[in-house]
């Protein structure tokens, strides 16, 4: 039996291909949106993987350090190092900020780490160029997506840092590339004020009778000195010894240090379920809207093509063509349009994903789901046209 759908598609191939390409670009956007969501989840996982931690110790009653702000004294890590099962512990600070380099600035997540080597908590896992931070001040390791090069001088607040190493795929949960600097510099940068603000703050403190008591010499100087330093970090990253489970180590820290401790699984839950939940919902809404728009386009195109063939359909029915053959013809055309659209969409998404500002992770499972979804949409979209075709009276082929 002749494939009526195939012949009709070949007969009006140009129209079909152009429509398929248009639909394909829409499908490409849909696949990209799914890729953006996957990329966000992957960014969150990479953030956790790259921290090299088994446990995150943060301020009590907070979901820090990524989903909420958390503040801990920077000497708490010493006590944690003495807890059973703890192999290593290191302070870490995170600041999302614009980092200047020459005339441009780059949105980054600045990470304050204790200078050290790979494998220690918080350190970039590997470098693609250069070396790790070895000095206590003014050195930086940057992710290649910042666009910085080895030897570049970058400005964080008022201080200049030299890029000594480059790493890859070190990003925040929002996809911003990371810049690692020494912890002390990060702590300073967190609350660094300009000179005018420092002078005003000193004046205010001096005007406060509680801090400037005539009978207590040295109190004012001590208060001012404490205001000029930042003894806080956002979290303590903990690696546990072999043979201990995360919970074995977390329970005593919670109990005796009165701090919040999250395991890797809990932190992933916080990042994926809470931090990017709103973005995920937005993307979900986009996907639903795009699916509806795709269905409407396919339905409209197939409906229009069918209306253009009413007389032929009447003739086909008059000469004894089964309704199922006519319905099959329309449905196959719709599916054909979907197939063209999917191929174009997949190619388009693959081409433009790397140049997307956000990380787009195109998972094969999403492509398979997308393919199934498109076929279902095309089948449903053809229903209106099939309904019209089946209502065509064979008598319409006969004049009068």
């Amino acid at each position, binding site marked *: *039996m*002749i494939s009526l759908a195939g*012949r009709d598609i070949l007969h*009006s191939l140009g129209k079909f291909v152009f429509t398929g390409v248009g639909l394909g670009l829409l499908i490409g956007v849909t696949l990209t949106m799914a890729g953006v969501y996957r990329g966000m989840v992957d960014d969150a996982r990479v953030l956790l993987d790259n921290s090299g931690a088994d446990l995150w110790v943060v301020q009590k009653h907070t979901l820090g350090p990524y989903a909420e702000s958390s503040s801990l004294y920077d000497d708490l890590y010493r006590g944690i190092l003495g807890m059973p099962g703890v192999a290593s512990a290191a302070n870490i600070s995170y600041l999302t900020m614009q980092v200047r380099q020459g005339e441009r600035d780059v949105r980054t997540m600045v990470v304050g780490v204790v200078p050290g080597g790979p494998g220690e908590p918080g350190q970039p896992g590997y470098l693609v160029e250069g070396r790790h931070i070895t000095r206590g001040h003014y050195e930086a390791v940057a992710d290649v997506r910042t666009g910085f090069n080895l030897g570049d001088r970058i400005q964080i607040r008022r201080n200049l840092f030299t890029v000594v190493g480059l790493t890859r795929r070190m990003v925040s949960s929002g996809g911003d590339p990371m810049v690692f600097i020494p912890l002390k510099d990060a702590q300073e940068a967190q609350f660094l004020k300009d000179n005018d603000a420092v002078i005003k703050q000193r004046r205010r403190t001096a005007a406060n009778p509680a801090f400037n008591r005539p009978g207590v010499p040295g109190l004012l100087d001590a208060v001012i000195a404490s205001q000029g330093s930042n003894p806080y970090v956002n979290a303590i990253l903990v690696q546990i010894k072999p043979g201990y489970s995360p919970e074995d180590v977390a329970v005593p820290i919670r109990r005796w240090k009165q701090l919040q401790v999250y395991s890797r699984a809990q932190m992933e839950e916080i990042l994926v379920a809470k931090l990017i939940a709103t973005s995920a919902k937005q993307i979900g809404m986009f996907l639903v809207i795009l699916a509806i728009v795709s269905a409407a386009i396919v339905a409209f195109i197939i409906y229009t093509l069918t209306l253009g063939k009413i007389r032929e359909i009447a*003739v086909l029915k008059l*000469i*004894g063509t*089964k309704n199922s053959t006519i319905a099959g013809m329309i449905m196959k055309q719709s599916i054909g349009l979907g197939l063209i659209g999917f191929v174009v969409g997949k190619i388009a998404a693959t081409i433009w994903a790397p140049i997307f500002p956000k990380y787009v992770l195109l998972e094969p499972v999403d492509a398979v789901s997308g393919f199934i979804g498109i076929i279902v949409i095309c089948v449903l979209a053809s229903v209106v046209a099939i309904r019209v075709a089946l209502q065509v009276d064979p008598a319409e*082929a006969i004049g*009068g």
Partner: protein
Amino acid sequence: MADVRTKGIYIESLWKRYGQGDTAVDALKGVDMQVAPGEVVGLIGPSGSGKSTMLKCLGAVIEPTAGRMTLGNQVIYHDGWKIHDLRILRRDNIGFVFQAPYLIPFLDVTDNVALLPMLAGRSNSEARERAIELLVALDVAHRAKAMPSQLSGGEQQRVSIARALVNRPPVILADEPTAPLDSERALAVVRILNQMARQYETAVIVVTHDEKIIPTFKRIYHIRDGKTVEEAGEGRSLE
């Protein structure tokens, strides 16, 4: 005349009423007609006389209100459809030739003709063989691979006649088949219909008001106000 009750088409007191009550209109009022196998008859009448309604009843696409219709040795209609699958009835027993050829634009000439036997379950090769045989007989085999849009009006009409004949139906209904053609081509179409009717023992009813071809019929049914009157035609030679 051959026995039209067992072969050909036989119509007796066919009525068709549209609407009900005060708005009811009787398009056919007890039409009688008989066409033997191999015979070509003309059905003529002014606009609104019931020609199209007659053709639709004969083509089993609208249901007559009353009467009896026999095709070959099958009762098609007698106080209701006697054959329930009218689609198969049309596919296997009735060939249609329209005023415009209405060829399927996305199929080439061969497949336009071969589609019917394929729909009837014949293999592609057998269906195409039949199609080519008819295209040769109708002198359009040289355009077998052409698309309908590449054919002239006369060629398209010959292809549509081939399509009507390909399943060897006992009846062909031709609705104004020569309307868009000039005198020479119109007579050629009637000649072909006569040849094919004789060759395949097919009863052919040609609905027309084309003065060029009316003199070629040996028998003519005039339809006026829903009733038919049979009269002898001139039967002018087509050679």
